[in-house]
């Protein structure tokens, strides 16, 4: 059996193209125009980032209703405070930071509401999204991870989602969540340790 390693170590850095601006440059162009009071560029930023913000929220919040609220709140907050962002090619990190903190805040304030495991239908929605055609993604395995995520404590889940789903660096995640890098690393190790145990147990038919 061939060993499969995770491919790519980068942060999804945009490919340079001589004629098209990179996504980061385009983001900043839109941000500057929006900061100057233009409405259309602000709308374009929302269109570009709401899917990512919603995806992040769904994985952290664990159910579509709370995710929808979190995504809406996060996106509106980001746009409301757009003037505080300094255009330096990191808008994606900035908006994800706002989204991650909005989710954590929601979870903290709604602690009495459990994070529900996704239903089969919700898992199917997540797993049915069209993957990058250059990558073979096992949807069943992806659904298994989605089912596992709500079992993690909030902090570990948020770190896991930002680091692996969003492919941010350890430093990025630490800055986003305002915690030491060592905390991010230990949260990741614990989360992956639990994920490994969970997958092995499922493979052995112990739990579903």
């Amino acid at each position: 059996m061939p060993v499969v390693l995770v491919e790519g170590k980068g942060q999804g850095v945009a490919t340079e193209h001589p004629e098209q601006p990179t996504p980061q440059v385009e983001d900043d162009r839109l941000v500057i125009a929006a900061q100057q009071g233009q409405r259309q560029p602000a709308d374009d930023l929302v269109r570009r980032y709401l899917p990512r913000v919603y995806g992040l929220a769904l994985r952290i919040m664990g159910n579509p209703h709370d995710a929808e609220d979190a995504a809406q709140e996060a996106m509106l907050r980001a746009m409301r405070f757009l003037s505080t962002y300094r255009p330096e090619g990191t808008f994606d990190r900035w908006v994800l930071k706002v989204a991650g903190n909005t989710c954590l805040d929601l979870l903290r304030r709604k602690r009495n509401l459990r994070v529900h495991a996704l239903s089969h239908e919700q898992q199917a929605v997540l797993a049915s999204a069209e993957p990058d055609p250059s990558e073979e993604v096992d949807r069943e395995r992806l659904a298994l991870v989605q089912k596992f995520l709500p079992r993690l404590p909030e902090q570990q889940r948020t770190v896991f989602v930002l680091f692996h789903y969003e492919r941010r660096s350890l430093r990025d995640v630490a800055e986003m969540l305002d915690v030491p890098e060592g905390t991010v690393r230990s949260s990741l190790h614990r989360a992956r340790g639990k994920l490994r145990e969970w997958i092995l147990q499922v493979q052995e038919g112990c739990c579903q």
Partner: protein
Amino acid sequence: MNVHCHQIEARIQQYLDRQLDDAQQQALLLHLELCESCRAGYQPLLEAIRDVEHAPPPPLPPGLLDRVLLQMPVPGPSADSAELAAPPRPAFRRIVLWCSGMAAAAAALLMATWWPGITPGPAGRLGGTPPQVVQVDPNAVMWLAAGVGTAPIHGRTALAMAAGQAALWSTRPHEHEPARIVVCMADFQPQADEVLPMPHVPDAIQFLANQAALQSGL
């Protein structure tokens, strides 16, 4: 550079942390190829993480983009960065921030009829403009949250909107300071340091509820 079984856990974690250089990755790969036990123990995790890192974002729920665009603030340099740095305010599903359009009309109509019976709430003790918590009938809030500004307004929905507007008007300390209003389910318990419940507002809402029930036969 060899990797031994007792090192595999740490190396896998370093690898997944993206902390291994090429040579270290090759050594790890070689060990996993040769060691059936380690491969069986860790390959499922590696495959799962690979899938996760290539997972596309889920499809947006219908209407979410439109709702966000509809509520977009006016762009421009107006926000206070200190507020963004502070922990963000919650986005409760049942929060209703503003009554607009038809809601305002309904509120104005109801206010014109019943305002004399409402006692305005006191100003906040925390300084600034505290969010006003208004607890109202769950059904009314849900209807309101589902269709604010777009759906036809009837009976109890109008009541909820009016209740929100009543609280807003009754607690706004100065006309130029927009008050924040949180309309929430009756079972929501706000934290003491976040909001300041106003005892007079539920009285006002109850008054409105009674009046609405009399008027509409609900």
